[in-house]
């Protein structure tokens, strides 16, 4: 006799959590597929190796480049530009965003022009920036700042507006003045969400960095990529892209770690 088959629910359930092992396995598979496709196309020379280098050539180039002091200088200057532009945008943007999210008057004053400006592509400002700030460090920092600032203000304002009104009212009935309520309720309440937003914006900052470094520079990772392109060193282009990806990943992980450490209550 055949034992009755145990009925099990289908595996793919909407929103259902999976074990961390399964998660890691799926992630591993997707990387593996990517690598397999790359290997297939490059080792069989289905694509000309000049356009698509093989994985081992890129890996070799990766270690060769990281072995040189010059490459670390490129990394250093790029990290400096990204962090300066990003920090500046945060320094100015976060307070303005909180202000715009808190008071309707401030919202009306700040948001409409920002909504307008944010649809202007930051890249289109490059010629203007070069006229205003020349081609020095400030020009790159300014471009990253422009790319991040307007979005940041709008997003911070939005987070601030979504703080529970009941929490705010509770603080009023406990004796808080308006300014105290901003200090003791709004600012702590937005922090976890703010960290998520900063993570996102930092990603954009890296994108604008590459754009900034494609014009009139002789240092930085974007420049290294440009130069490699000039000599058709596609393996070096790959290395540049991978290094930027890794730097982005590292900064993102740092943010995620800080989020867990700083806000255990969330």
């Amino acid at each position, binding site marked *: 006799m055949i034992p009755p088959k145990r009925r099990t629910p289908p595996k793919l359930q909407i929103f259902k959590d999976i074990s961390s092992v399964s998660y890691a396995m799926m992630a591993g598979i997707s990387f593996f597929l990517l690598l397999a496709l790359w290997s297939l196309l490059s080792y069989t020379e289905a694509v000309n190796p000049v356009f698509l280098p093989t994985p081992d050539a890129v890996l070799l180039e990766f270690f060769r480049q990281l072995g040189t002091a010059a490459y670390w200088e490129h990394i250093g200057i790029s990290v400096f530009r990204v962090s300066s532009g990003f920090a500046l945008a945060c320094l100015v943007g976060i307070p303005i965003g909180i202000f715009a999210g808190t008071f309707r008057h401030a919202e009306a004053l700040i948001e409409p022009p920002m909504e307008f400006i944010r649809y202007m592509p930051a890249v289109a400002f490059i010629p203007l920036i070069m006229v205003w700030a020349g081609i020095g460090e400030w020009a790159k920092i300014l471009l990253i700042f422009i790319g991040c600032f307007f979005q940041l203000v709008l997003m911070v304002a939005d987070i601030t507006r979504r703080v529970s009104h009941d929490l705010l009212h509770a603080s009023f009935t*406990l004796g808080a003045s308006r300014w105290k309520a901003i200090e003791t309720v709004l600012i702590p309440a937005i922090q976890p969400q703010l960290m998520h937003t900063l993570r996102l914006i930092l990603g954009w900052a890296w994108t604008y960095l590459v754009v900034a470094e494609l014009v009139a520079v002789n240092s930085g990772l974007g420049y290294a990529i440009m130069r490699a392109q000039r000599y058709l060193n596609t393996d070096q282009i790959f290395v540049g892209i991978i290094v930027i990806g890794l730097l982005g990943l590292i900064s993102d992980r740092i943010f995620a770690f800080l989020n867990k450490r700083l806000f255990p209550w969330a």
Partner: protein
Amino acid sequence: MQTGSKEEAATRGEIVIHNLHKVYTTKKSRFEALHNIQLTIGENEFLTILGPSGCGKSTLLRIVAGLEDHTEGSVMVDGEEVIGPGADRGMVFQGYTLFPWLTVRENIEYGPKLKGIPTLERRSLSNYLLKMIRLESFDKSYPKQLSGGMKQRVAIARALANRPKVLLMDEPFGALDAQTKLEMQEMLLDVWEKEKTTVLFITHDIDEAIFLSQRIVVMGAGPGRILKEFNVELPAERTPEVREHPEFLSLKRELAGLLKH
């Protein structure tokens, strides 16, 4: 108490609501939420406003709290007109409003800290309140680690930490399960006994209203107005057995009949 003799000579926690109207007007429509509310709540009284949803009872409470303004009339607490929220009127909300980034103790000490009460004094006050709500061992927990009933106990303690004249409660136990609700009601009566504040309580639960209150005001909707007042003639000491008291049952019947219409 820090605010000396003037207060002690006069009443403490008397709410006088006079000729109160609240009308919401938009360009197209006009909605009368409260119509001519007259109500005086005495010093140290436990008064419940009972009514169906949409009768404006929450609006009335929020006006007394100063969180909403009114169209006409006045609300006075100890002879002073209410023009905004203040620490003299503590409030417990229906939803959970503990500050999630503060521990239980820090939540309780929030009001006293704003007032600038020194750390040691604050500490002994929060110790006293933690003991009263029987959550001493949870002083370092964050709100997300507490059950719904525990959260509301902390919310009550947090409101009481300011030593308010009046405690305003907006269906505070509405989201709790039946068993927890009963426990909370008994605890609240204990607290009221110890703290001697005026309590203005909002609910749509008839049993809850009778068990807790000295006086019940029934409100009706469309427009929100007071229908009738009842004195609850039950022993001051409310034990669970009170729920079988003939007075309890007859009042319950009467209130249920009134709310049906």
